[in-house]
């Protein structure tokens, strides 16, 4: 397909006015990859009022392209994780809701939407041990309420050197609240264990109820997952041991998800044993990623082969070839099949945080989040030329073909 692109894949700004609010379309493509069954050759997707009506074979859609995939889902989009989005006065702040600090006007949303990510989860930054409640949002839409898919989706925290990096012993200035625990990985782990034990205690002794206890209790009851960022192998091990200890002690059965699990390839059996879903960071060219960890290229393929639920993430990369739309390509470079790679950015993340009834695959009744490609998806030599979020056209493929 050597259609020559105009100077830039024009934003919808160029499209006629009424197209902006239109939420009913028919889209045809040589390949429709539904991520919920096998691909359809020469497929047609009809969308009305922001929902997918039908996915069938056929052609002659108003919008045409080479391939259509479901809108991509990124569970670690890391947009706008500035200083003001984490409450540093305490290390354990489960009651904080990141949705209250969200900048809905940040240009990062448009950047993600333009490159195919339609649903994203925003987590509190890793400067706190237990950051707070995350929120799953659409990357485009009319108002904050319309864009919120699931508030309080997971309780997010971090194990590793990041949470302790700005703390220090008293240094003779005890009033500065950075002179506090934890200053090492052991301290971070101790904070986690203490938080859960206090929460369990508070169930019996109401006087021990403090801010954030209810959220921890809900995690113990398994109401929503617990997502822990753990780059290196010892952190992943600590997270899994924490879950197993809580189960062993009878405090509860938290549903653990490990975020940015770069070194999951070292001890995969831990994760398989506890069926812990894993969100992998973006692939780094020389392998070196956060907190000194090493992220092997075959990790995604290996974990998927062992039956684990694997998702990829883009970490809000600014450079186009590092964004989520290219990550499945690098996973395939590590040996993953196309179908498995497609699931890691669509239905798998959706299933992990329980939004797979609305997003993650092309099935009638689901939200009309679609990505239109100029060639085989995730290939370097194909690009995202069209995006629909809730049936609304964010990126117009017709502009591109002019």
């Amino acid at each position, binding site marked *: 397909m*050597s*259609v*020559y*692109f105009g*100077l*830039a*894949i024009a*934003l919808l700004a160029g499209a006629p006015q009424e197209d902006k609010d239109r939420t009913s379309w028919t889209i045809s493509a040589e390949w429709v990859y539904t991520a919920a069954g096998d691909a359809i050759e020469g497929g047609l997707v009809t969308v009305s009022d922001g929902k997918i009506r039908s996915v069938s074979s056929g052609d002659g859609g108003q919008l045409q392209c080479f391939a259509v995939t479901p809108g991509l889902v990124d569970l670690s989009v890391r947009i*706008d994780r*500035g*200083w003001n989005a984490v409450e540093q006065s305490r290390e354990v702040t489960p009651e904080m809701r990141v949705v209250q600090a969200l900048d809905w*006007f*940040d*240009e990062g949303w*448009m*950047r993600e939407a*333009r490159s195919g990510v339609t649903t994203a989860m925003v987590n509190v930054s890793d400067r706190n041990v237990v950051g707070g409640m995350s929120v799953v949002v659409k990357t485009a839409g009319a108002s904050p309420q319309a864009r919120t898919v699931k508030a309080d989706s997971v309780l997010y925290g971090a194990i590793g*050197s*990041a949470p302790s*990096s*700005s*703390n*220090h012993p008293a*240094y003779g200035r005890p009033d*500065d609240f*950075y002179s506090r625990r934890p200053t090492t990985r052991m301290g971070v782990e101790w904070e986690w264990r203490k938080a859960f034990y206090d929460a369990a205690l508070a169930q019996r002794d109401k006087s021990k109820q403090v801010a954030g206890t209810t959220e921890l209790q809900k995690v113990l009851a398994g109401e929503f997952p617990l997502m822990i960022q753990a780059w*290196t192998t010892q952190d992943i091990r600590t997270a899994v041991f924490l879950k197993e200890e809580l189960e062993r002690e009878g405090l509860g059965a938290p549903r653990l998800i490990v975020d940015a699990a770069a070194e999951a*390839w*070292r001890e995969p059996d831990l994760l398989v044993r506890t069926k812990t879903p894993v969100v992998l960071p973006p*692939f780094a*060219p*020389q*392998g*070196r990623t956060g*907190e*000194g*960890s*090493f992220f*092997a*290229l*075959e*990790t995604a393929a290996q974990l998927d082969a062992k039956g684990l639920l694997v998702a990829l993430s883009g970490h809000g990369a600014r*450079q*186009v*070839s*590092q964004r989520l739309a*290219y990550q499945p*390509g*690098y996973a*395939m*470079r*590590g*040996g993953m099949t196309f179908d498995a790679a497609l699931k890691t950015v669509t239905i798998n993340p959706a299933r992990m945080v329980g939004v797979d009834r609305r997003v993650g695959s092309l099935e009638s009744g689901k939200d009309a989040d679609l990505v239109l490609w*100029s*060639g085989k998806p995730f*290939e*370097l*030599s*194909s*690009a995202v030329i069209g995006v629909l979020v809730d049936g609304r056209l964010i990126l117009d493929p017709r502009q591109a073909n002019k």
Partner: protein
Amino acid sequence: MNVFTASTRAAAIAIGALLLSANAAADGKLAIKAGKVVQGPGMPEIDKGVILIENGRIAAIGADVKVPWDATVIDAPKLVAFPGFVEAHSARGMDRPNENIDPAAFLSVRDSIDPVNFYFEDSLRWGITTINIQQGNNCVIAGQGMVVRPMGITIDEMTVKTVSGVKLSATPKAGMSAATQAQALRKAFGDLQRYLEQLVQEKKDGNDRARREALFQGRDLEGENAKGRAMEGSAWKVAGLELIPRGEIDEKQVPLLALVEGKLPAFFYCGRPMDVHRALEVARDNGFLARTTLVISPACYKAADVIAEAGVPVVLEGPVVFTETDPLTGAETEIFVPGELKKKNVRFALSSANTTTESLWFQAAQCVGRGMTKTDAVASVTTIPAEILGLGKQVGSLEVGKAGNVLLFSGEPLSVTSWVEKVVIEGKEAYDRSKDVRVKHLMAGKAPANTQAMGGSASAEKKVVCCEGEDPAEHAKHLEAEAKKKDKGEGEDK
């Protein structure tokens, strides 16, 4: 860099001589049988083709080439042969890419290239067979670069072309602003002109005085024949330079003089569109515009028509898709820069940044993704950089008479799942993925025994302290300042 050795070498400037490495096996014959042979951009693909390489050059290529009995054979029915990639401009492979003295055209990268540098091994891994090493962009007038092949233990084994051109920059050097950079460039060429004029004037005065002395002493003056050469150069000339033997000219000025006389190519770095005008103006005013190649950042796409008007080729440094922020609304648009250059028909070559996701072949694939034809995309990483380096007849495609630089891909060359299995440079096997320990480590993560993992030890636990010994509260304030700097932008008025 040792100034003494550099200056003697700078005097013997072999312009453009292609030195085939001395130790290429004189009688080496190699035949490569591949499932498919892609000869070059826009050239026919041969199924089950054979490439015969003798003495480092391609002797024959085609489906029915007879393989001589004494040729070693690489039989790869499932692989795809492809011409080696050419890197038109790179400042890596050296310990320190930049100088701190301004006009340093007399220096050469020859003295600072480190043959065992990790960059050359990485280049082989990503299929780059010819590299033009130039000094870094942080300069006013830097030293002379050279073209090397990423193979060989000594500089001489690596040399493909001893001088590839002088490096200049129109973008301010660190600690300078646009005005002082322009002033420094003007001063460098102004000093050259004043120095030559003074040299000629002193010679003339000397001759006059000798003539008068002879008259006074009553002897006949023997004819003073001019031992030097008149100054060529299209922009400005110093009359009477033939009076000066070229050997007497200060060796620090000789390369600059060669530049002005159009004998030396130039690589001019432009980091911003306004710098393109400065670079073209300096090149035009000093007569080396015809031999200038601009090394541009993606932002310079705005000056594409000015570049086209000047008719100079460019090397595009940085990602092929440039994200531009509107100064008034803050909205971002993504500009496909090679597309812009193509529209204004500017001849351009791509260049790989240090990470592999931006390697030449990844960038070429992204160009195809954004609508560029496969021919143009492949040409921008093979034949066009070869022509820019004046090696159009030696490298860039698989044709009879050209160097035997062949890559063997595991699949479709521009596909994300393909790997470079083998690299042959001038008929000698330079790389084989099956023996590449570091790729095994990158793939599986397990570092084989006694090999240093890529980029530092895996298990070293680095405590994130960005300023040694700094009290964390200061450190936190320092992070706060940085966070403020990348402020959301909505808050400000101005």
